[in-house]
């Protein structure tokens, strides 16, 4: 997705602050609180875009408008408010960065609730979001986001 380099401004177990360089130039701030992961992408020429994920919900915020895109109920993901093409593109950009920002290989996520193959999930989430519906991709997107937190 045109990201050539990262400048890690700050990184600890639960937060990241990264400058993205390349076709997509901007800044990605990640914060993990409990099982909720908030990723805020600030790119030139558009308002900040926030992707917020939890084990059962995927939502975005842009210019003070919050939208729940997908929700998990009774073990199945369903679309609440289908993302626009522009939203999908921005989520794909965030996922492209997440591949390298997430824990490499495998890790425990959601405080030990699940064992995830993080890098694999992030790569697959990125591929999925570019060609399939969010309903299918949501499990991988939220798993990938959870992999941004490092185990204690």
């Amino acid at each position: 997705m045109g990201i050539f380099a990262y400048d890690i401004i700050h990184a600890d177990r639960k937060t990241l602050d990264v400058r993205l360089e390349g076709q997509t130039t901007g800044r990605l701030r990640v914060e993990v609180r409990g099982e909720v992961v908030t990723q805020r992408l600030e790119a030139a020429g558009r308002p900040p875009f926030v992707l917020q994920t939890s084990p059962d919900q995927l939502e975005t915020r842009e210019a003070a408008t919050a939208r729940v895109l997908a929700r998990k109920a009774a073990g199945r993901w369903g679309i609440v408010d289908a993302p626009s093409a522009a939203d999908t593109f921005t989520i794909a950009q965030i996922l492209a960065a997440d591949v390298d920002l997430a824990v490499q290989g495998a890790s425990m996520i959601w405080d030990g609730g699940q064992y995830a193959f993080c890098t694999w999930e992030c790569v697959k989430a990125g591929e999925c979001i570019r060609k399939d519906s969010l309903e299918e991709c949501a499990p991988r997107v939220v798993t990938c986001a959870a992999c941004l937190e490092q185990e204690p």
Partner: protein
Amino acid sequence: VRKASDLTPFLGLAAIIAIAIAVYAVRLDQPKWDGPVPRYTYDEKYTAFTANRIARGDSVAYKSAARRYEYLRGDTDDLSLLSRSEWTSPPGAPLALVPFVAAFGYSEVSSRMASIIAAAIALLATASLAGRRSAGVACALVAFDGVFFVLARTAMPYIFLVAGVTAGAALTVRALRADQHKNRHRWILLAGAGLAFGFGISVRLTGVPLCLAVLVAVAISREGTEQRFLAPCLFVALVAATTYLASYIPFLASGHSLKDVVDFHRSMAWFHAHVPSDFPQGSRWYTWPWAMTPVVFRSDQVGSDTAVVWVVGGKLLWWALVPALIYGLWRGRNRAMVYLLPAATIAAAWLPWAALDRFALFYYLVPALPFTAVLVARALHEGRKRLMAPAYIGLSLLLFVATYPVLAAVPLEPTTLARYATLLGVAR
């Protein structure tokens, strides 16, 4: 001067071990790692990968839950989407691979060489524990067990745990039986036992109950109490603990502090306390000796054929585990060490898993195999039917040969593979 007949058991034993090593070494480069990114066989993606990063001097080798960008600094030809440092276990297994990777370069063969050497040590130790009359039978049973075979030619940790624990037990027994007037010889054997146990624990912390079981069994045995062997056992434990700590010297040398060592243990403890109870291919501890379904390590398409590595136990030895445990406890009721020690070690390799509500694989029981083989060989020797031992070994070898293609990644036609899958209960 020894008679030629005195040497026959040793020559037979040497032949068994030599044949076993030769069989392990054939096609050692299979399955290959080649591809656009390396394709490792099961947990080689952790163990061999970490060994390579240690050999390179990359500090990420010791970092818990490092992010991918930290792995991307420098050469990335060893990095797959699934590989990562071995930060959920102590560093013994990758460290055992490092000299081979450093000397011969990073490849399937160099990484797996260390496993073959560990297997050879485990076989020698099994023979030593079994005693002269049963050594050949015990050794053959272990050498051609399917699980032992696969682990002996894969760059993964468990064969090192087996080697450490079995060698430690054999050296402890040798020390107990050593001439009491040759004190120096005895203490050297005890130090060797401590080193072996410490190495085993540095591979997997599940080695702790195994080593303790061996030492307690020796100390409370009839022979042990007659020789007041408690102090030597404590010495072995001390050397083992020191060896375990010494396995962190490369960690400290790579710029970490003692506090980092403590944090590393805290991180390991957190991981193992949170491992889910369900995971693909996992099974409950009480099913392990009778496990029919293999653990699938690898599956590759080779033209129209498929080459697989399935961890299939040599059923005769695995099914004998519980009877051997009962036999050992029964015969060891008067504290005879030759029965008490293997029985205690089998129990220590198996029963602690009952207390853990976490995912586990049946081959985690492999450290019990040499001790099971020792008791089976002893029972066969003591049995009245002279043909029992040859028949038992013959059947075991037949099972090994029959399952060899799916143990060693031999390309198989779809119909043949389907027959194996049906026979062994592998979902495809």
